[in-house]
């Protein structure tokens, strides 16, 4: 019964909308009383701008870099927040979440001046750094939940067996954290790939990501083109996840594979 419910809701909420979108991208806009016509126009517009492919690569690379920095910064912070106690810990946790409540435009304007002074405006590095603003809070939150599920005893045990910090991390923490790491990569990648305002201001049009080309088309009643762009856009997070999984396999080796089977 439960399984049936799962499949039905999957069908209604995920499969049908995606199928509809696929069909929309190759048909003329739907109107009552008018027959549907097949058209390749939506996809022609997507690839009309010769820079679309290039922009997809830029978006993908920036998103992966953002995800990587997120993990490098997020893991130690999450561990500290979860397994150590120090004064004002709760306050610090709230402060780390604050960027999410800041209007993105305010953040962009303030950071832009700093970026100009540091010579990072209009560069992909600047864009990568600024994408940390809306992503790191989520990563910390997700990874902290992951660490909360690892009992302190397990870490102490490793230490008693004389495991170094790195070894303990690789053999105990990392395998247990894999589900959280996977979620935080997914979040960081989709958030980074979807940024328009931050990329526009800091990248200044020089850093051409997919939303730079795609978002202006949302201001029209042209469903065909919008559907085609949306599908093309989905390829970016999908590719990023595949790359991240492959990289994780290389780093974590067989322990990762085994874990994956159990999760």
């Amino acid at each position, binding site marked *: 019964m439960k399984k049936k419910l799962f499949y039905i809701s999957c069908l209604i909420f995920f499969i049908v909308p995606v199928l509809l979108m696929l069909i929309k991208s190759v048909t003329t806009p739907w109107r009552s009383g008018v027959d549907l016509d097949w058209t390749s126009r939506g996809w022609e517009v997507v690839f009309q701008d010769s820079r679309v492919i290039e922009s997809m690569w830029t978006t993908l690379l920036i998103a992966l870099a953002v995800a990587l920095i997120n993990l490098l910064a997020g893991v130690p912070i999450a561990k500290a927040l979860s397994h150590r106690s120090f004064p004002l810990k709760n306050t610090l946790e709230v402060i780390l979440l604050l960027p999410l409540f800041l209007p993105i435009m305010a953040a962009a304007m303030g950071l*832009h001046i700093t970026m100009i002074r*540091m010579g990072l405006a209009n560069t992909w590095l600047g864009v990568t750094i600024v994408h940390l603003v809306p992503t790191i809070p989520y990563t910390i939150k997700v990874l902290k939940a992951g660490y909360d599920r690892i009992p302190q005893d397990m870490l102490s045990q490793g230490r008693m067996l004389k495991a170094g910090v790195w070894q303990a991390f690789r053999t105990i923490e990392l395998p247990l954290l894999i589900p959280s790491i996977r979620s935080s990569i997914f979040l960081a990648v989709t958030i980074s790939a979807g940024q328009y305002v931050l990329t526009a201001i800091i990248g200044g049009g020089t850093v051409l990501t997919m939303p730079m080309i795609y978002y202006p088309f*949302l201001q029209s009643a042209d469903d065909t083109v919008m559907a085609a762009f949306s599908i093309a856009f989905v390829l970016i997070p999908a590719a990023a996840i595949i790359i991240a999984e492959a990289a994780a396999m290389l780093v974590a080796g067989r322990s990762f594979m085994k874990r994956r089977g159990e999760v």
Partner: protein
Amino acid sequence: MKKIFVLLVAIMLAGCNAQSEQEEVDLSSLSWDDITETASGETVRLYMWGGDPGINSYIDDYAAPALKEAYGVTLERVPLDTNEIIQKLETEKRANQDEGTIDLIWMNGENFKRAKEGELLFGPFTEEIPSYQEFYQADDYAYDFGTATEGYEAPWGKVQFVFNYDAARIDNPPSTLDELESWVKENPGKFTYPEASDFTGNAFVRHVMLGEAVEAEELLGEPYAPLEEEQAAAMWDYLNGIEPDLWRSGETYPSSLEELDRLYSQGEVWMTMGYNEARAESLVRDGIFPETTESFVLEDPGSIGNTHFLSIPYNSPNKEAAMAAIDFLLSPEAQLEKLKPDYWGESSPIDIGSLSEEERAGFEELDRGNTVLDAEVLAESYLPEIDAGYVEWIESEWRNEVAAD
């Protein structure tokens, strides 16, 4: 930590050096030949809104190669919303960045006002542009939404406000505001307009203002002055009068033109509207609007039209090349290509009288498509834009007077 600090300082210093190398362009000592000579081989980055495939391909497929041939200048189109462009320049100005990335901006109205008042623009430069001198009536472009242009922007295109309707459902479209009112009452739920905070919705309300509250002649070329109370009351009465018979009884309005277009596309409402008298052409061709779509304008009060312009930012790295690009984009050849429905289909601000007979014939004989009204009809109903101050006033008052009750 110390190393990082040193690195940061080094980067900052490097940034400062780059800024002081900025060359100043003194136009008075340069001839047009000097300018085009410097321009050749350079790249111009044109920042513009990028949501229309027709406009994009006009730039990418026609203008860029043709400009390359004419002046050896490479044209690169960068898609960015005008608001973000101005924002970027304002911040660069505050950070004293004299070497920017933008060479050309496409804008008008409120954005121009903001850019000019913030001293974000290079100029005056239009005096130097040969095709502007030769083919354009400078007097017509002295003001942009009431802001004096003073040579800081060159007219690139011209659009006029039209209503689009489905001729399969409406035989005789209204031609005055009164007729529109009675049409709305006879066909409840089949008309609406975007909110006044939307660019197009605001323009619709301005038409009502010019029809019900004040005579257009009184406002033209005048700075913003608050309306008399009864005048304002007359226009709000009109809008409140039609409200019960609007789409969804006027309880809600489309938040943008895109939403209204969608309603029209689905047959929910029978009229839509917008700047650019030729905009329906590509929408019909692409199957978004019904094939029976046609256009009309209101003879009374008329139809507001405005011009949009090209400007050069104060920190453009290739000002000469930007001027060469403007000269080309304003030329009769490029303007005629822009008028053709294949690409953009937009009207030209060029002075037809200044053209050679052959060129004039090209403009006059061009078929702009079935949905576009005749040039005479458009010219007869033409009204220039009023001061940008009214746009803001309508935005804030409409919410209280019409939407709130």
